[in-house]
């Protein structure tokens, strides 16, 4: 076990390793846990995942470098991912990306100098019926028009939410949804990683 990880993350790692018939299968989940520990998928993070799974560090790096959501350099506290694939493109996604670049002062792929916001375009976020769509730390906002996208960025800067909640952003800035979102979702993201309880990246916040 990785002694400098938090006690909770050590327990999570143990549980994740037990979930699979072969330890190597836990590499992807553990990369998320390690990324949360280190802030990104650092070289140390990859070595630790290698130690836990019995893979070589090179094998873990091969995995980490294949998937776009493992960031191997530090990124902002809020990762703003603008979907620019076909359905969002047809509904004006490029204007949303431009508005966000303008409002943040950084271009696609960059991070603000204060380390708060990273901007990227992504391939299909699976919100095509609610195009154009944007994710903040992988929590979704649908039907986000350029003006509202600017407001979303300003809100992130001012409110600095500890937990990024999709429902909250949708209510404040969103428009048409792909489908009725139905039940309220109380959990959200506490890092620029998918918010999933077994990985320790999700938290509930009542507001």
């Amino acid at each position, binding site marked *: 076990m990785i002694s400098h990880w938090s006690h909770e993350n050590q327990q999570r790692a143990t549980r994740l390793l037990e979930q699979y018939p072969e330890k190597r*299968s836990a590499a992807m989940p553990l990369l998320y846990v390690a990324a949360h520990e280190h802030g990104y998928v650092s070289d140390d993070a990859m070595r630790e995942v290698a130690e836990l799974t019995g893979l070589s560090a090179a094998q873990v790096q091969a995995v980490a470098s294949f998937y776009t959501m493992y960031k191997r350099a530090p990124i902002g506290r809020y990762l703003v991912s603008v979907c620019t694939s076909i359905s969002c493109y047809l509904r004006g996604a490029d204007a949303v990306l431009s508005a966000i670049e303008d409002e943040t002062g950084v271009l696609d792929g960059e991070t603000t100098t204060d380390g708060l916001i990273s901007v990227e375009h992504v391939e299909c976020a699976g919100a095509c019926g609610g195009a154009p769509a944007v994710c903040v730390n992988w929590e979704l906002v649908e039907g986000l028009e350029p003006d509202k996208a600017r407001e979303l960025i300003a809100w992130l800067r001012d409110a600095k939410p500890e937990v990024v909640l999709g429902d909250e952003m949708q209510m404040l800035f969103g428009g048409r949804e792909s489908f009725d979102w139905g039940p309220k979702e109380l959990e959200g993201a506490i890092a620029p990683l998918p918010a999933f309880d077994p990985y320790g990246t999700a938290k509930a916040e009542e507001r």
Partner: protein
Amino acid sequence: MTSSILLSRMVAYPADSNTLARYVDTGGYEALRTALEKMTPEDVAAEVKASNIRGRGGASFPTGVKWGFLPPDIRPRYLVINGDESEPGTFKDRMLLERDPHQLVEGIAISSYALDVQHAFVYIRGEYPKPARRLQRAIEEAYEAGYLGKNILGSGFDLDVTVHVGAGAYICGEETALLSSLEGRRGEPRIKPPFPAIEGLYAKPTIVNNVETISNVPWIVANGGAAYAAIGPETSSGTRVMSLSGHLNKPGDYEIVAGMTWRDLIYDVGGGILDDRDLKAWVPGGASAPWFVPSEHLDTLVTIDDIAKQGSMIGSGAVIVMDDSTNVVGAAHRIVRFFSHESCGQCTPCREGTTWLERILSRILDGYGRPEDIGLLLDVSDNISPGLSWPPAMTTICPLGPSATAPVVSIMRHFRDEVEAMIPAPAAVPVGAESDGSGEVVGG
């Protein structure tokens, strides 16, 4: 005609359709009880086969037939649910996972019983943390209530279910790539055969089925395979969830029975074209599918076989509608860019070919197209998928590369004059000017 198998609970109980209490209250887990108490695994598999249900992930392969490929004597076997939904235009599994996760959990439990599986996995794309959380909570509730875990409902049947979250790679929707990813490897497709049913996860017999496919299993067991087969045309049985997007008044997920016309689907179900504009083209089954145009296809039928006969596919059921203001080169470029980005890089025709296609379309968009680019686009496409026929011929391990040729061939077939009109006469290109490949005009 719309009918409701998969969406009925979320329509009737929008505030809590995802909870165990609501699921059980509306008859949930009764099909699992019936299966475990009154049916043999073979009985359950026979009902699924009789339903004629075909996979909802893209390939439309008959599920019962796939299940039949498992070798009888090798254990353990695995069931892997494909929730990597990443085909541009598709957002149906997201709804099923977020709003009725127990329907999937019950489907997994019943299917695992039928297949003699004791450990099932659900692979959910990394961009879907909310669907993953909803499913994880449903699984925890199901363990607590005795629908998963040891000795389910006193039957002696054991089942564990693990949710695995991906990390942003479309290719993992291809079943062998998904298995590679689930084994902690790069998500690279494997050469078939061996098919996963023979040699899948950890080289053990494995069935990979889509979220929507398995979400139908509780209904099939509760009502019988014959009842399911009786819904809709014989070779497109049951309902399916279509994801409608693009220039529509009412984009969204709709559960339909196959057999309506495209006119009905686009103008009635989808509410018609935004701002009363004219329909220019649509993608009938996800970004990989060749496009349809109103002059040829509007009154043809939405069934698996009719779409195939017209040279395209229903795929993942994703319909992307383009109005008459659409720049088709721009739209094709956006789809090709997707495939170029998502190519895993193993096969040269795909890795290099998709990159070439993307760059050529990009320079045409930039105003720097060359007269020979028309021929070059077709030549590169032909090198990825010789003959440019349908279904596409393959030079690659998986269909991703050939998929990238679909939009290119589509615009050449239906809108060649528009593509040619975007290419300036040679003298019009300023000397020394070049496209930077960004899709924006620079220099000159």
